[in-house]
């Protein structure tokens, strides 16, 4: 399974302790996200990757070393249901 993030410029981010607010420009919808959802969106921004590549990117670029495949899949499913990530 591969995942694709929204095109560059489609999301506005505002870190709001302890969450992050994200505005999805195409739909005009606001989302409040907890970790690691903002990091997943950042990793997938403007591109696509599979689960292994995403885990590696999160570990290297965002220091999210404890993500399991199951937990990450659940978060991706949630983001897909919210319309922020596309399953390919």
């Amino acid at each position, binding site marked *: 399974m591969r995942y694709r993030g929204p095109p560059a410029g489609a999301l*506005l981010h*505002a870190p*709001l*302790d*302890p*969450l992050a*607010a994200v*505005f999805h*420009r195409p739909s*005009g919808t*606001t989302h*409040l996200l907890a970790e690691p959802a903002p990091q997943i969106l950042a990793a997938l921004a403007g591109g696509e990757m599979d689960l292994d590549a995403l885990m590696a990117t999160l570990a290297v670029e965002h220091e999210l070393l404890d993500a399991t495949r199951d937990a990450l899949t659940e978060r991706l499913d949630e983001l897909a249901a919210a319309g922020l990530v596309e399953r390919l």
Partner: protein
Amino acid sequence: MRYRFGVRVGPVSFRVGSDRRAPVAQLRDLYAGYPAPEVGIADHTVRLEAPRPWRRWLRPQVRVAGDFELPGAVPLPARHALLAAEMAMNLQMALGHRRHLLLHAATVEQGGRALVMTGESGAGKSTLAALLAGAGWRLLGDEFALIAPDTGLAHAFPRPVSLKNESVAAVRTAWPDARFGPELVGTPKGTIRHLVAPADSVARMDEPARPALIVFPRFGVAPDIRPVPPAEAFVRLTEASTNYVALGERGFAALTRLVREVPAVALDYPDGATGMAAVERCWAAL
């Protein structure tokens, strides 16, 4: 319509038409000293009219009409026409105003900095605002905080303060010089009386203020103060806004900026005096 009234309140102007004289006379009294709409053109229109022709005389009633209406709204008795006018003006703002982010909040100012108090009906924001205005704060508004998306400033919208039931006596006791509109008994919200906005608030209605503190008051409970983190403040304020969704990206930018720049506290208080003292303490600690 036979009787007409025009007024500008801060950056917003209204025109009200009525087929009865009394509500327009009451509005003129409540809004004495306010400017007329600039170049004679109002942003919002409200019409007060009898729902049926015979309702002008037989158990007289008033229904409100305007640019925005609530379908199925029940007409009020004509003796409550002033309340109908104020509610209709609120409705035009809530549904039609796009120039500012609107928060259902009472706002007061001191030293160019604004204190924004928001909560559900009954939380005591209007009473606290009236008590603070009586203690020398400048009343920016009772019903709506108007946050400019480009600057983040709170613009004044000092309409008369709608006080309900026992809060009328509480404000009158604390502020004997306060001037009120007529007592409206038996409304859907109980007894209502409008506190006339202080002359200083009206004279300075074009002076905005920088938001400095957001308070979420809750009346009638044991005193408590706790900080509200930005994410929670954001959620509460999206619920308190009547046009956040309609403003789209501008609303997102304005509201995230507000909660990131301005500290917020939840303030529980058992009575007006305790609430006022707690607000002053929070303010002094900024």
